[in-house]
């Protein structure tokens, strides 16, 4: 039995133009479309492909969040995950706490691979996978754009600032995904029906016995500084003149 644990975070859909609330206490989320974090969808797709090639026997999707997160887990099940675990949490769970939650589930499930998105497109933190690997005392292969399994090892190509880097890690390990790893499949209607029968277990975060009180306090949300209005030029001649005026050519 070799399992893959996949993290699915519920986030504001990437197409939504997020706005700060006028009173600066947060961003507007009422009535806003929520989706699986795009990087996590890529993580799930990779897990499913590994399983389809015989590299794993079970894919478990895990989410930490409010009860509504069931929707994203059902989508994950419809994509092909075998079962789902919702760790229900109604307040902020910082990456370190999320990593501790995952570690608890790892102790129970003993997966060979944990696949997470490299970052959530809400907090843009890019931390949970690395923290989990540290707490678990196992390898991390972050920003993966290619994963090749070979027995008890994985060869992972990573998107780094300088180009592409390949590392080899012993399993079990934590992998985090980058955009070019794969293109997630679309969910088909019959799969949505089938997903309704797949097991979805809910666990209260408090029952796991991990410290989840936030360490950081967000005191203010502000919209980003607006750029001053620019000029439209008619043709290349005017463009070059405008660049010259700014001393840029």
């Amino acid at each position, binding site marked *: 039995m070799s399992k893959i644990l996949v993290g699915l975070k519920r986030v504001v859909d990437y197409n939504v133009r*997020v706005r700060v609330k006028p009173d600066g206490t947060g961003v507007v989320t009422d009535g806003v479309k929520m989706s699986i974090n795009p990087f996590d969808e890529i993580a799930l797709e990779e897990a499913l492909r590994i399983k389809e090639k015989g590299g794993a026997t079970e894919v478990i999707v895990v989410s930490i969040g409010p009860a509504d997160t069931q929707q994203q887990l059902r989508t994950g099940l419809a994509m092909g995950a075998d079962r789902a675990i919702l760790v229900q949490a109604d307040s902020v769970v910082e990456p370190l706490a999320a990593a501790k939650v995952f570690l608890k589930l790892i102790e129970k499930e003993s997966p060979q691979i944990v696949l997470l998105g490299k970052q959530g497109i809400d907090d843009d933190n890019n931390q949970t996978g690395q923290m989990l690997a540290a707490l678990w005392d196992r390898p*991390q292969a*972050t920003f993966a754009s290619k994963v090749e399994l070979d027995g008890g090892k994985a060869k992972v190509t990573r998107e780094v600032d*300088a180009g*592409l880097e*390949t590392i*080899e890690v012993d399993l079990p390990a934590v992998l985090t995904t980058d955009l070019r790893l794969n293109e997630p499949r679309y969910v088909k209607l019959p799969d949505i029906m089938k997903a309704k029968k797949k097991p979805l277990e809910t666990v209260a975060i408090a029952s796991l016995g991990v410290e989840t009180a936030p360490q950081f306090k967000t005191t203010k949300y502000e*919209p980003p500084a607006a750029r001053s209005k*620019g000029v439209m030029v008619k043709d290349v001649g005017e463009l070059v003149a405008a660049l010259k005026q700014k001393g840029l050519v």
Partner: protein
Amino acid sequence: MAKILIVAEHAGGKLNQSTAKCVACASTISGAEIHVAVFATDGAPVAAEAAKIQGVKTVLTVNNAANAEPLAAVLAPQVAAVAANYTHVFGPSTTFGKDLMPRVAALLGVGQLSDIMAAEGAYKFRRPVYAGNAIITVEAPQDKKLVATVRTASFQAAPEGGSASVEAANVSASLPSHTRFVTRSAAATGRPDLQTAPRVVSGGRALGSSDNFKIIFSLADKLGAAVGASRAAVDAGYAANDLQVGQTGKIIAPELYVAVGISGAIQHLTGIKDARTIVAINKDAEAPIFEVADIGLVGDLFTVLPELEKALG
């Protein structure tokens, strides 16, 4: 008083400019004592460079054959060990720092703050969330070590002119062998580096093929600029992955940014909002890129670019 350790980023015996940007960030915390640590097989050349950065008091070298490549799993226990004497540990928000710093934080049993844009005190910072659609002010607890990454595009590199002392540090940490470096492929372009170049020309999906993308390189060469790309252009294979600009690519702050055939999706814009001057060339007058452009030209890039090159002489 804040005592800040900065983890140096380096490759091929050379210090990356991101380190001087971290120093610039740390220098805005009043009264901070700033040290830089170089983890390498032989850190001397890099340490000598770091010692010249203004504001740095001490440079520590941690030499170990295992540090030949920057593997987070190998570096993190060493950084955590050195961190014992500091109140803050900073690294750059480059792929190097993003990979390493959360692992360091977890080993120290603390959270991590990502992408500091501004320090409003030793424990109060501003950072972007939601692809830069919101800027938050965050307070960190004063009784815990603060591990953070610095958003390099928000800071000008601290200038040279310092003369820090260089000391060898002895670190006893058991290092794992479960993670091994295999290879790195970097396209040697001979062009300026995207992250530090004062000028950047970027191409989008509109280029249509990697062959067509050559006109972006050609304009960049004319301007002495680095080349960037949108995600769509990278996904389609017109440009290499390390050229992607945006929320999940590189965040840059050049003097001049020229966006060619790029619509201006929020994920792209977050990567360029600190650019001094943004020029947009797009055939759709309604493209969102024009909302942030300082100079906009509506037109077909395949006629505009050749004309522009000619006009530039």
